[in-house]
């Protein structure tokens, strides 16, 4: 977000027309990834008529919405200089606990609360391991990743849990608000809320400060440990929410649900401009990063690209897109 002041708004324009305000909200880096997104979308739609239909676009949005939602929490952790590998397990276990509660005929609100509780517990454990014991975040969250997945297999014995749930609950995964799927609406709402938190609140500034220079932040009175604990709890709880949405969509809690999701989520944040070294990154960037990966995944199927080649192509497109973005901002004198 250090780029905000680099391009001075043209005088007189900013008051009459809010473009500069919009530009301020998005850093240059995000606009570049957004451009890559639009470009790839345009390319795909040149070759297949099925891409640019309302149904497909909304389907794509729904497909990547869970990754995007989790990346919103992940980017906060990454900005503090940490990493949360346990999001896939938090997501899966939360969906499973919610499913078990529905199976026990508990009220929907309690089921959702139990699922979110799983997330809070994950975050507390991760955060305390990192701040109190001083474990490297990679190790702490790798441990809870395995514990969470192990618990899922112990509970399910490998069998999906498929209870009945009321339609009002299923709505958050399957419903539409107008033409927009409910999970996409939740993603957009979270994106706005956390963008405001990161840019307009002291807590947000402390998150950037912690990752930018932890020692200096400590000296200047930032309660670094509290900030870290908070971001791990936020990350796990958001992942738990994603697990609940996933269960509401499929009405089936799979033992493998969320397996490997951490890589997609971290990739989304990084593609969207977050630096794994900490201090740099944004919520909108992470969501756009998830969108880029989601659109490529959809495009390779619509274009009927050989299934065995898809992963390789996806990786190549990501590397090219982000490289162009970095080269472009270097040439244009953006952040480097």
């Amino acid at each position, binding site marked *: 977000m250090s780029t905000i002041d680099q391009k001075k708004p043209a005088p007189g324009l900013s008051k009459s027309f809010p473009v500069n305000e919009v530009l301020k909200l998005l850093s240059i880096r995000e606009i570049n990834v957004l451009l890559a997104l639009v470009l790839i979308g345009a390319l795909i739609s040149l070759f*297949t008529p*099925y891409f640019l*239909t309302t*149904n*497909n676009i909304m*389907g794509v949005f729904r*497909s990547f919405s*869970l990754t995007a939602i989790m990346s919103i929490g992940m980017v906060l952790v990454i900005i503090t200089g940490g990493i949360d590998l346990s999001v896939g397990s938090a997501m899966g276990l939360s969906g499973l606990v919610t499913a078990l509660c529905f199976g026990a005929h508990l009220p929907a609100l309690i089921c959702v609360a139990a699922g979110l509780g799983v997330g809070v517990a994950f975050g507390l454990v991760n955060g305390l391991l990192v701040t109190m014991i001083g474990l490297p975040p990679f190790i702490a969250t790798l441990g809870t990743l395995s514990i969470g997945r192990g618990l899922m297999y112990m509970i399910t*014995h*490998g*069998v*999906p849990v*498929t209870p009945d749930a009321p339609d009002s609950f299923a709505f958050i995964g*399957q419903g*539409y608000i107008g033409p927009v799927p409910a999970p996409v609406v939740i993603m957009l709402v979270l994106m706005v809320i956390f963008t405001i938190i990161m840019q307009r609140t002291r807590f947000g500034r402390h998150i950037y400060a912690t990752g930018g220079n932890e020692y200096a932040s400590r000296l200047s009175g930032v309660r670094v440990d509290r900030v870290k604990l908070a971001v791990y709890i936020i990350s796990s709880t958001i992942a738990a929410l994603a697990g609940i949405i*996933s269960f509401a*969509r*499929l009405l*089936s809690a*799979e033992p*493998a*649900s969320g*397996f*490997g999701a951490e890589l997609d989520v971290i990739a989304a944040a990084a593609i969207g401009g977050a630096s794994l070294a900490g201090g740099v990154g944004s919520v909108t960037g992470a969501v756009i990063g998830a969108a880029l990966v989601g659109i490529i*995944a*959809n495009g390779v*199927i*619509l274009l*009927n690209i050989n*299934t*065995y080649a898809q992963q390789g192509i996806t990786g190549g497109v990501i590397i090219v897109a982000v490289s162009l973005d970095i080269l472009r901002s270097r040439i244009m004198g953006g952040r480097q």
Partner: protein
Amino acid sequence: MKNLLRFSYPIVAGLSIATAGAAIAKDNGDITVAVIPKVAVPFFDDCNTGAAAAAKELGVKYQWVVPENTQGATQVKIIEDLTARHVDGIAISVNEPRSVQGVIKQAIAAGIKVLTYDSDSAKSGRSMYIGTVNENAGEVMGKGMADAINGEGKVAIVTGQLGASNLNERIAGVKKALAAYPKISVVDLEGTEDDLAKAVGVTEAILRAHPDLKGLFGVSQVGGPAATKVLTEREFADRKGAVKVFAFDDLPDTIRGVKDGYINAIMVQRPVTMGRLAVQHLVGQIKGQETDAKDIDTGVTVVTTANIGSYTK
């Protein structure tokens, strides 16, 4: 060595008749058979049911030994333990075909009868393999689909892990069966990593990319639930029935899909049969009644609305 063997053949033959005679004299109650699954999942609960029932019928002692994980080394340790305790027969569903070769040979050298079920280790010297021949199961599936779409149209295949050998054998079987129908074309093959959420997204994209799709194969266990989920969505309401769905395994959601008319047929393996045959053939071999054991394909049951309440495994 060869000469020696040839020379001693009559003696060995005589000995084996004598031991066979002794084995027949051995009371069924003195025979112990051990059955080893891959790991604790419901499929093997069914194997256990069949095996335990057969052991009870025959009056032999029966042990169900469950490995705590899917690593090859765990089953190696179990076979070593069983060999040391000198059980009379071992049936195993192999996690790692290669890693168990040595210990199975040792067990056989120690006079223990060994066979494989469900998952084979072909070079271990086991007497026989009892289980689903996946390519045959795929052929049954392909033939069923061809009939359902009257031998004409576009079909797509949704699989699990791209590298899974059992799934690739099923796909090969499907393609083999469809080769007899020149008017059927396989327009798409997609992997899902056996993740339901991913399978749903992939299935949606396939249906959008091929508006005239006639048939959808789900060769791994996520295919059935994913197809059911997608066809219940508002967007694809008019595709129900227009797209014939053939799936694998009887997970609860897949069964529901058949009952609600989203899935035309599912291929169900026969784990209970595998367990029962495994114990019966082991006991036959231990008693010397079965000398030239041959592999058995337990096949698949094709489950449709007609037999969904009554099929056996």
